[in-house]
């Protein structure tokens, strides 16, 4: 199963940014209720069971705030090129 890490202090909030909530093909992110030090509401993750490890959230996060480690041995298909379709 892929492993997701959210660096809450680096995040600029789901309300103001929210790119992770949009770009996740499984829509696994939602705003948390706890602010970070800058007053933003970082995302929380609804669980990794459905995660395909596509790393969209990591690659699209403008603030280097999300890391997705693909589980070795887990042959999750790279859905990263989803947006490349004509």
């Amino acid at each position: 199963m892929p492993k997701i890490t959210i660096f809450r202090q680096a995040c600029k909030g789901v309300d103001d940014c929210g790119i992770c909530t949009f770009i996740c093909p499984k829509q696994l992110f939602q705003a948390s209720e706890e602010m970070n030090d800058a007053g933003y509401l970082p995302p929380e993750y609804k669980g990794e069971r459905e995660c395909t490890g596509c790393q969209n959230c990591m690659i699209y996060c403008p603030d280097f705030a999300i890391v997705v480690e693909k589980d070795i041995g887990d042959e999750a298909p790279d859905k990263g090129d989803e947006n490349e379709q004509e």
Partner: protein
Amino acid sequence: MTVSIHPLKKYTRSHITRTTTCPGCGIGIVSQAILRAIDELEFNMDDFVFVSGIGCSAWIPSPLYNTDTLHTTHGRPIAFATGVKLGLPNKNVMVISGDGDLAAIGGNHLIHAARRNINLTVILLNNGIYGMTGGQTAPTTPRGLTTITSPYGTMEHNFDITPMVVTAGASYAARWTTYHPRQMTRSIKKAIQKKGFALIEAMSQCPVQYGRVSKLGKAVDMLKDFKVNSVKINKARNMEPEALLGKIVIGEFVDIEKAELSEECMNLRRKMMEAM
């Protein structure tokens, strides 16, 4: 196994802990796309010198990137980078700046660097507006858009930057949006390896200024707009101009080999010195 640090942080200055951009800004996506290209090519940051100008996107390398960075005056990074490259031909010299910096005040340096075909990688972030100064119209602002300095709508036509740079003589030119960061990284990798002038025009969302005046909305809405309005170049070539109005043509516009200036200068010096 849990990471304690973002894997791309090894390329950034350790004492810089936060990015300077507004929430949802596309600059961070491009910043990451650049570092990922360097990572995938297995380059060391010391193989690069970064040069940037004035504006939000000029702050991508300065102060974040952990190598030699030159933050210059408005519009001039390509001119500075030309001196850097000619003096250090064996380093990768990358210019990162915005559309206002590189295509408005610095437009002359952009086309002449492409004409010279000097081996620079230029990442031009195009958000269609002046963000840092508060939302003024840019030479890339679509005609008719109301901005703070075009309160009755811009009457001017906008630049189509990538084709302009192709015409000026670039060896490599590609345009992607922040909805296409993987393709962008792939193009940046090619641009870094290209011996010659290489441009990546990165269409990037500015939710705070452009999103407001265009009424496109927040970052997510602007990314959706990029998704809907992007047309691959191969498809665009078969489309009528009217059908392309309001569309963003994406893809590789040129990828050719030709004589490159910094190498030509080295060859000339070698030839002249040998002729002693």
